[in-house]
């Protein structure tokens, strides 16, 4: 095949490759131009929110924004006006229907004037249901609707649990390790509500309504524990994230480990987010202390990692919101440096406007009939309207780019094919007549004799002698070949070294160039 044909064949193959890659990008939907914008609706000063939820707490038909920090509990209406605000010492809160009106109430576990107390805030009215409780500094509180009736479970900073009935009467106590309670959640076993509790020292326990242990275990120091019933079979899965990166999924039924993975950094948050819009599988997102982000899917009890990404600092909060209205939620994450990022179902990331301080809480809900994302940082709480924009038809741009590249490849092929091959710079002008060949042979032998003479006189030594000799012997071999081609009789006087290919005189028993022993 000629050089031109080969050039165009290579160009054609390259074009096919380029267009195939472009096609894959276009039709797989990998190429898209999408962005998420956050437009601020209102903002209020509120520092270091520990708990935040958009929920109907005031008895009207509208949701309000509940927020709690280390010294205060506040409820904002949909426009940002304060409906309720009360200061506490060391408050920890949870939401649960305490009075049976089918609407969530705020349960506050705090240090009051008469010791550790519990308040219930209903419709903005505060009622203290327990005081002088024998428990330590508040760490967690949860309302659990056991089959025997609701209970308020308090957890302190030394791993102690105290259960109260809705009147504030102590029911049972339990000691979960010796460090701060880091997780209180309801876990289902055969459809029955149980309490999953975990402390910072790595102790994990599932308790029944009487405070009896169903099972317990311990692992490395623990930062986060959450329980979900991923496959809605009435048995929950308990997820824990360790200080040293151990991410473990337990079966709530018997404590068996369903999945374990080392994340390489402390796990700072775990949240459920419906990332793929597929109702038969459940997804959750894990955030790390060094900014790592991992998405998992659980289907039929099997945990699969979907994708991973990263933020620039510790992931403080994860929330799910269906921004683009496609039925699948996007994960909205906030980190300790103030970055708020939206991760889509396939893990692609878009940033919202950065905050000047770290993000503490993110929640999604309807305020004044509009769906908003509420973001709390170390200084403020901001209510944002998130908008999704995409460029229509952008997914086909890889094809356009592919066509441009293909055109350039064709142009290059045409240019390279138009350039003639560079001529050989080792040229032999040789007359094929017998006289000429014989004269050349004589000349070559004289030249070889000259080189030998120079070596003997010490004018040429070593490599130069061998290199010159090799060239002359090569020319001699060419001369013999020319004799044969022309059909003239010739006494062959050269052989080729089978190792280095150098031409040698017939009868030599060792190659002068490479040292190969010759048998001839």
């Amino acid at each position, binding site marked *: 095949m000629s050089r031109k044909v080969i050039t165009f064949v290579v160009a054609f193959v390259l074009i096919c490759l380029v267009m195939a890659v472009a096609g894959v990008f276009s039709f797989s939907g990998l190429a898209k131009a999408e962005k998420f914008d956050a437009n601020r609706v209102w903002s209020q000063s509120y520092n270091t929110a520990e708990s935040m939820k958009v929920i109907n707490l005031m008895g009207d038909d509208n949701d309000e924004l509940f927020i709690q920090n280390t010294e205060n509990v506040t409820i904002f209406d949909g426009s940002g006006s304060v409906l309720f605000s009360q200061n506490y010492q060391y408050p920890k809160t949870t939401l649960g229907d305490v009075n049976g009106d089918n609407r969530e109430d705020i349960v506050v576990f705090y240090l009051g004037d008469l010791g550790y107390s519990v308040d219930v805030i209903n419709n903005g009215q505060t009622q203290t249901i327990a005081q002088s409780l024998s428990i330590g500094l508040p760490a967690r509180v949860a309302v659990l609707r056991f089959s025997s009736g609701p209970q308020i479970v308090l957890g302190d900073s030394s791993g102690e649990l105290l259960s109260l009935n809705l009147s504030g009467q102590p029911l049972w106590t339990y000691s979960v390790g010796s460090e701060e309670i880091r997780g209180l959640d309801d876990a289902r076993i055969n459809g029955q509500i149980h309490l999953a509790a975990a402390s910072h020292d790595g102790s994990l326990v599932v308790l029944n309504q009487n405070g009896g242990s169903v099972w317990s275990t311990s692992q490395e120091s623990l930062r986060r524990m959450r329980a979900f019933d991923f496959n809605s079979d009435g048995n929950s899965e308990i997820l824990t994230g360790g200080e040293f990166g151990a991410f473990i999924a337990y079966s709530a039924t018997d404590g068996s480990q369903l999945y374990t993975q080392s994340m390489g950094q402390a796990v700072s948050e775990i949240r459920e987010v419906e990332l793929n819009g597929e109702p038969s599988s459940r997804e959750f997102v894990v955030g790390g202390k060094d900014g790592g982000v991992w998405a998992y899917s659980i289907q039929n009890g099997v945990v699969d990692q979907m994708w991973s990404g990263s933020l620039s600092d510790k992931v403080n909060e994860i929330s799910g919101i269906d921004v683009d209205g496609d039925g699948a939620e996007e994960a909205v994450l906030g980190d300790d440096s103030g970055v708020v990022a939206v991760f889509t179902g396939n893990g692609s990331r878009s940033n919202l406007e950065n905050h000047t301080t770290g993000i503490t809480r993110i929640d999604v809900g309807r305020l004044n009939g509009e769906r908003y994302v509420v973001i709390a940082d170390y200084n403020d709480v901001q209510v944002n309207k998130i908008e999704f924009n995409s460029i229509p038809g952008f997914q086909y741009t890889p094809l356009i780019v592919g066509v441009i590249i293909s055109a350039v490849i064709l142009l290059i092929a045409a240019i390279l094919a138009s350039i003639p*091959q560079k001529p050989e710079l080792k040229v032999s002008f040789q007359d094929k007549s017998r006289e000429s060949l014989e004269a050349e042979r004589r*000349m070559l032998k004289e030249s070889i004799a000259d080189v030998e003479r120079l070596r003997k006189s010490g004018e040429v030594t070593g490599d130069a002698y061998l290199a010159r000799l090799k060239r002359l012997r090569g020319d001699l071999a060419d001369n013999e070949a020319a004799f044969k081609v022309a059909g003239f009789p010739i006494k062959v006087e050269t052989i080729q070294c089978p190792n280095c290919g150098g031409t040698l005189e017939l009868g030599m028993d060792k190659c002068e160039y490479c040292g190969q022993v010759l048998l001839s």
Partner: protein
Amino acid sequence: MEAFFCIGAILLVLVLILFSYLLNTARKRVNETNSIGKKQLLPIYISLADRPASIIQGMNKLRYDVNKTEKAGDKWRWVPLLIFFAGVVLMLVDGLLFLFGYSSFVFIGGGVALWIAAIITARGLRKSDSYDFSRRYNGTRDILHTLRDDLKPGSTYLGHLDLTGPLLPTKVARTAKDAQNRETEYFRDEWLALKAKLYDGNILRVSGIQKSKKRKSYWKRSRISGKMKSKPEKFKGTEHDLKVRIVPNPEVYKIAKTSAEFKQGLNIGKFTISQLSTEGGMIAFVANSPFEEVEHENVLQILKSAYTLLQRKAA
């Protein structure tokens, strides 16, 4: 953030290197020099075993072919740079999208692909580049042309023209070390070997030999700082030997013992005759020149002068 700047700086340097490579491809090639500052010339090796006309025609054709390839490449020298800028434009589309808040790498990917295409094109075009022909190429051709009518009819020139360079490792004739253990290489480049049977029955052998000397690079401890420093190689000089043997046809010529126009120590052009022997029915002499380049006129002049030693026998 530091990592971002670091990667950005590395990418910027790479882009600048690429741009400079393509710009150099686009500009007309400047004369390159070798490690000792000598101009790089086209490395040609020609075996001579043909009639004068064929050799001269072949040498002209080789020159034409090399120029044709180079000119064909010259037409497109700007194309790689244009492709580079097309890549930049493509990448700017993603930059524009980024300004509007979208993140896309489709056009950046396309731009990178175009840059790779630009490199391939530049490499292809650079392959068509050639160094200049050595002056010896034309000089040898002129010698062959001048002597063409003096050749025995039907006979051929024999020999070689080796213009691959005088300082190749294969041309190191010997090495020597000085008192400071520094190694000096002595090169012997027989760039021209020519044998011709002449019309008058004489046999002419001419060898053009360039002898060069180069001190190899070496390490030396500085007297002031005490650090080991590498000293570069140094070209110590070159000279030319023209070795000629003329075997006259005894039926036509006899060799004169002396000639005023040709004797040992005589300067002819750039050459000085350093050795002369007329023993054994053969004129053998070595003419020496301290110059790096000798013109073909000097070679022809010295051959012409050598002929004054031949006296035609009476018929």
